[in-house]
């Protein structure tokens, strides 16, 4: 599989950080960067990454399915909305945000909108307890989220399209 040039460069850079005998340590970063760059992880990519780090494709799948931030085989949407419902967020309105998001988007846990634009996930603690309730959209954090703010955020996502 040929990778986009930028990703190809990133691959060499990441693999180069590890001693050759430990190049399989590059597995998780390679997958994470690929997911961001390509939007999804395909079986072809699994084979490609396996070949590059010298493991079997099944071993790549083991890693992919273990880590919750790697989405395989089903990709998440372009905008992945992650709502925390762990203790701090739970006490400050996280579950209400979750229900609101479900209702507004018509999606459940790890579901993707028909156009592939938005996906929803109920996540464990994202380490933003001091600013609870918090949600995360892709890599951006949003603090002290209220139902109104959530509405606005979701509206913005539609417009960003």
């Amino acid at each position: 599989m040929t990778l986009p040039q930028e990703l190809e460069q990133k691959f060499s850079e990441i693999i180069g950080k590890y001693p050759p005998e430990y190049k399989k340590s590059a597995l998780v970063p390679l997958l994470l960067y690929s997911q961001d760059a390509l939007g999804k992880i395909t079986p072809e990519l699994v084979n490609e990454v396996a070949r590059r780090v010298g493991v079997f494709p099944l071993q790549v799948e083991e890693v992919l399915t273990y880590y919750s931030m790697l989405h395989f085989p089903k990709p998440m949407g372009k905008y992945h909305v992650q709502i925390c419902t762990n203790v701090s967020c739970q006490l400050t309105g996280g579950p209400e945000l979750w229900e609101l998001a479900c209702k507004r988007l018509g999606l459940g846990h790890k579901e993707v909108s028909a156009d592939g634009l938005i996906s929803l996930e109920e996540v464990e603690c994202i380490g933003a307890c001091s600013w609870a309730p918090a949600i995360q959209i892709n890599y951006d954090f949003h603090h002290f989220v209220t139902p109104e703010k959530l509405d606005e955020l979701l509206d913005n996502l539609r417009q960003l399209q």
Partner: protein
Amino acid sequence: MADLVKLTIDGIPVEAAPGSLLIEVARRIGKEIPAFCYYDGFSQVAACRMCLVEIEGIPKLMTACTQPVGEGMVVRTETPKLAEARKGTLEFLLTNHPLDCPVCDKGGECELQDMVFRYGASESRYVEIKHHHDEQQWSPVVYFDPARCILCYRCVRVCSEGMGVNALGVVQRGAYAEIAPNHTDHLECDECGACIDICPVGALTSDTYRYQTRPWEMNHVGTICTHCSNGCKTTLGVRNDQIIRGNNRDRSGINGEFLCVKGRYAFDFNESEERLTTPMIRKGGKLEPASWSDAVRFVAGKLKQLKEAGRQIGVVGSGRVTNEESYYLQKFARQVLGTNSIDHERSGDVVTLLDALAGRANALATVDDLYRAKAVLVIGSDLAHQHPLLHWQIRANWRHHAAHTYSVTAGPVREDQHTVAAIRAAEGAEMNALEQLRDKLSAESELAIVFGDSVKGEAVRQLVSFGDSLGIPVKYVCLVDYVNSRGAMDMGIIPELLPGYQSAAAAGLPVGLTLPQMLANEHLGALWVVNADPLRNTRLAAKEAFVIVQDLFLTATAQQADVLLPSASLYEKLGTVTNVCGEVQRLTKAAQTMGAKADLEIIGLIAKELGMASQMGPWITDKVFAEMQQVVAGYNVPLPVIATGGAAQTLPPAVKIGVETDPALIRSARDTQFTSGTLGSYSKKLDSLLESPGSLYQGENVLALATQ
């Protein structure tokens, strides 16, 4: 050797080598510490938490499977606290485990069931609905029931570490973690079934054994696998003369627990509906059923008539029959029929190797040597496919002893995963390529060389002188095809040699025809074929020749028979076979097919009909073996060793054989894991597997896993 460590286990003082694991040391003194994930010979994962023990001075319970022994350690393996811990672990393992023991294949020999009985975790505090996932079929032989899996990782390890296949993995995490096959919903692998045998519960089950029987309803018969030449012991589960499963969980035999797909599943040919069960005589161009007495009388009469007429009689032996049968057959041919035209399909140049090694002790490697030698060189064979046990041994040697392996082969082989050097050389060009390894090999302290049929004739002598020139002890294995191909050579099923590699010419015997010469001889009076199929792709030049065939099936050769005698399979016989390393092992009779007779008995009956019974001696395996011990050089092996299920290696002849054989006659059938000559084509299970022979050497699966 470092000083032994002294410790106490349950009040018993023990000494153990530093670094040895508590669980192993305890086992040695008869204290069985329960464990699911620990399996000797494989890496440790400490996943199951069953092997917890108390160690004085350590506040927490420790896992005995990862705990090395320490000086002065005081260990307790059975205390109320441990019983409570194990009970808790079991309760946890049972949270999602179905209570379907009454229909589970593993019932009665299930390690989880045993443990629950022992620690009484029969009640659970969990009331939640069990997480369930439906059963899946991964291949024609492998079924997986995720709900029963306790995630011990044994199957994953035996496949990756033991076999080098890496077809199994664990996907998802936590309570949702599950064993997964390498192709999403199916397996592409060796189909060896090691994962099924090693599974402590009934999560992995085999197609042949599913819902068939209970372990206590079978007789367990340890005999030798009838397929390739490696000579694995297989323990057949037999009920009412039907073979239901093959495994070797008791680790008897040279193979320990190892078996390949053929040993585990390809016993079904034995019950094939195509088995011949009645003798047939050709009448008016058609084979008609006949009684044994009529058939034997007919054969004897014809042989007598042809012999008296001075016609040439050709005899074709096989690597599929026992040593006793081969010995008796050649004796019959040479002494009764007066013909020296006796041959079989030769698959390796054993004769030249033994000639080159004549008089040497410790020059032939055993199967065990391949596990212990400091270095192993493989020439011209893809062992993983053609000689699975030898591949397993060499891989285990690399895993456990960091042995150096070298390969000189025409294409990629599985040893490439760990070879020090892998050289690609076309068939026949291996000897030149070998020179590239000279420096590396000379630096080894010892070497075992395994070579295939592309090294024959002069090349074998070159190989032995190459070995001699290295200045280190070298042992050899000459690869041959079938279960007793080596034995057929030893027993003189070739015109050039008598049993024990005695020159036939020197003994005053006339020059006999080789197999191709027999088939091409227009004047041949009779052809007697014992368990072989030489006419599968060639025609018999002598159209009028009287053809006698002893076989299990109506092969291409059998179809041309004038008399067809149904013979018993190796699973239905007594006797001995000699494996690829020259190790003699004894068979045990596991089953019988009504109407078929052992080849030894068939030959005996013909001899009796000819009035030659007393000259031939009784057709009783033990009597024939006793005669072989006297007559066949190298076969004076200790009877107690083989009678108790052991393997005894024969020695090369004391003096040079001094007989040249034609290397052109040597040609291996190159059976893979999914073929096995005639028998393979009558095994439905093997046939069903031909479709998925594993793309293990293609594309992304060809990996030089230097880091693993």
